[in-house]
């Protein structure tokens, strides 16, 4: 897979990279990270969204948080694309360590190697890390 690491294209646009590292529901960090990214997209900035560590659990299929009275994060993931965020990545090692395959995931994401993650962070203007 070829990765396009998007950089700032105009002086008014900055590149924001979100690292979502937390499992959903146990803490609000997954939701907070998502909300901030969506707000960033509304401002028409360039957004990369990366699932890392336990954050990859956010992508599991068939989540249903009705009984714990919370928004279902798995569904909310679709809003990333609705807001025009297309660079959605999942970190390779995090995926493998959890025996996850692309088929287990609720949305389509690009697989990001270790090395490319470092490049993505390096080339970003702002990194928000939860």
């Amino acid at each position, binding site marked *: 897979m070829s990765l396009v690491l998007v950089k700032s294209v105009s002086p008014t646009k900055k590149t924001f990279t979100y690292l979502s590292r937390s499992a959903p*529901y*146990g*803490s*609000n960090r997954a939701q907070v990270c998502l909300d901030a990214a969506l707000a960033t997209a509304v401002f028409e900035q360039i957004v990369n969204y990366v699932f890392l560590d336990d954050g990859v659990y956010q992508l599991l299929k068939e989540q249903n948080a009705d009984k*714990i*009275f*919370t928004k279902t994060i798995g569904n909310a993931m679709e809003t990333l694309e609705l807001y025009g965020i297309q660079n959605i990545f999942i970190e390779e090692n995090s995926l493998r360590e959890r025996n996850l395959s692309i088929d287990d995931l609720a949305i389509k994401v690009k697989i990001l190697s270790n090395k490319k993650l470092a490049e993505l962070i390096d080339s970003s203007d702002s990194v928000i890390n939860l």
Partner: protein
Amino acid sequence: MIFSVVIYSAPYTSESAANALRFSQAVVDNGHQIYRLFFFSDGVHNANKLAITPQDEQNLQVTWDSFIRSNKLDSVVCVSSALKRGIIGADEARNHDLDSQSLQASSNISGLGQLVDAHMKSDRVISFG
């Protein structure tokens, strides 16, 4: 059987505050008694009476308040945790000349002795944090 429940977490930030409430409801639903709720550390934020939530979201502080009232429970917020976090009852507001107060009337401010007492008087103490 007699239970007490201790809550260490702020609402919304951790699932455990909501989990403590669901557990407490199940205790009552199953015919057991709750001797005391004890809100400790960031848990005191669950007793803030000023919370406003969107209509489609659960207001956890209001739900705690209703649960406490409808079951006539003894609900204690730890004094040393509460005051420095701005959880202030009518008495503290008066004593410190504050124009506002933030504590739900269904909870009382008291000391850590109430936590120890809860352990002494309950068959089971369950903590959420």
